[in-house]
């Protein structure tokens, strides 16, 4: 299953890339850390790695390394507000539990 962006998320990413003045696209990934095991990686990409898998959604190029894809398969990246705070949200069908702060999760 591919990785997708919602329209709102894609619009934001485009804007941020434009504001930054450079960048090939967006990296989504997963790292081991945090209180319940895994944490998301969300970065700009200036140079792709040879092993990266590349998806395109809503006009944004999304780079994912093969190891992370296992945990991210089918994820939809959304953008939204919670009170005054705004940012990106991973709608990840693989997640079974997450820690209180929500920044790390387990699968």
């Amino acid at each position: 299953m591919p990785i997708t962006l919602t329209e709102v998320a894609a619009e934001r990413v485009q804007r941020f890339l434009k504001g930054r003045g450079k960048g090939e696209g967006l990296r989504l990934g997963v790292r081991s850390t945090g209180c319940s095991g895994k944490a998301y990686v969300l970065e700009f990409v200036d140079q792709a790695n040879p092993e990266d898998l590349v998806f395109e959604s809503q006009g944004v190029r999304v780079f994912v390394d093969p190891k992370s894809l296992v945990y991210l398969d089918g994820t939809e990246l959304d953008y939204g507000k919670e009170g005054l705070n705004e940012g990106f949200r991973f709608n990840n069908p693989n997640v079974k539990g997450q820690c209180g702060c929500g920044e790390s999760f387990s699968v």
Partner: protein
Amino acid sequence: MALLQISEPGRSDVPHERRLAAGIDLGTTNSLIATVRSGIAETLPDAAGNHLLPSVVRYFPDRPPVVGIEAIEAAVVDPLNTIASVKRLMGRGIADIQRIGNRLPYEFDEGDTGVPRIRTSGGVRTPVEVSADILRVLKDRAEAALGGLLTGVVITVPAYFDDAQRQATKDAARLAGLKVFRLLNEPTAAAVAYGLDRKTESVFVVYDLGGGTFDVSVLRLTQGVFEVMATAGDSALGGDDMDATIARWLLEGRAGSVDPGPGEVRGLLRVARQARERLTLEEAVEIRLEGTGVTRTLTRHELNTLIDPLIERTLGPCRRVLRDAGLVLPQIAEVVVVGGATRMPRVREKVAEFFGRPPLTDIDPDRVVAIGAALQADVLAGNKPDAEMLLLDVIPLSLGIEMMGGLVERLIPRNSTIPVAKAQEFTTFKDGQVAMAIHVVQGERELASDCRSLARFELRGIPPLPAGAGRVRVTFQVDADGLLSVSARELTTGIESQVVVKPSYGLTDDEIERMLRESLEFAHEDVAARTLREQQVAADRLLQAVAAALVADLDLLVPGERETIEHAMGALTQARAQTDPEAIRKAIAVLDRVTQGFAARRMDAGVRRAVAGRHVEEFEP
């Protein structure tokens, strides 16, 4: 779940350790806070969507103060307890305030240190405390928006601010529980916001006409380094003065000439400001004076006639900075305008005419300073490790000491790049003299009484020696924020003298401690928990820094030092896991002390590496 931001490549932060930083423009009329999210700097709005926080605080006898629009609305009905434009009072003495006092409707108490205290129904308040109340609102706004505690902030000050005014700003931040990474000059922040740091070598002018202060600065950019070449201005000139001029014009046209009360003055100033703002787009406005039934029409042409003398007053400093920087007009690459008053077409016109080119106006002149400060805060927080940007500032006014006969001996001339240090030797003039007093002043005049008094330093603990034999070497140091510190050593014996500071217009450390305690008692949230969280953030920051230093420079440790440092780190880690903020604070102080020698060696090693690095470059073709 948590909302995430996009990081720079390879910089996805470890959860719970993301460094949240913000830039604050603590303005005379309005204040703003901005932050960098996903690579873009933007100002943060309140829940109602307002980015500008009016710098107005209203005090009550029985509840916490309110800040912003709600307070402005009360300014007319409750003028004595509603404090506006407090930035004008920062670092000022009672005498300064009496000079500008006829526009200020407040009641003052004189404290024992010459710091003005405003009597309000919520108690006596110093300007530092009022500013801290504004900063607290901005801090809460940012922490709500970012979903975490701020690790540090960059606060902007007018380039023209003297030591006392800078110190007062830093004290206000401390009272509000903010760690200040750096006080940044407003023009430098504006240049950074425009991305002028990405340009090639060139020279810029920043013309900043805010609510209460005017500054003009010449900045030079060379290979990513910003230098403030010269700065001048008038710390009591701005949009407020235009409003006052318009208000006087309105009063002249009013029937009967009864002196207006404080509330009425406020009302007049408010309609004056509204009229001035509307005349940016409209050619004429009708002004209705409340309670009199009188209506007057102000055209843009009339407005221009009224304010031209004020705009004219800004051009003198413009000429002076060019001369100080040794520049002629064609050498200026860009002119940036900052401050709400530069929205006025007349101001832009005059600026374009003087500098011979239209100014840059793309970024909202109210927000541009906060945005630049946020970009710098992001760099200082360590979120952009390969940022090349280095901002070098200068001291705006000469520092000197009062000599016999009241003359000033200049120690550090204005426009010296900071940090800067200067040592001076003094000899005792009496047998067995064990103390010495030094009066430090700031300004360009010959007589100490014509300069601003900064502080009186008393050197104590000089060993008793015959007259003339006691030689004390006093080092005056100005840090990157433009703040002075003094240390002293007797040369014959090598004994360090104790330096006791009596700031002329500032608060002593004891007073700030007391205010901190009082403000905590008054706060409505769970203070203990907050203090604890703040100390934990500070502890984490230090533990991370020291751990990284140990990994990077293990070879620089002297025997036994590693054990001492690790022991202190262990103690701090243990204290951090408990719930006593005071214990954490003490453990931080201990770790800080035992790493001093190591820190010095690391820095010197860094410099030697840098020197060595250039050595290699030199022989490359």
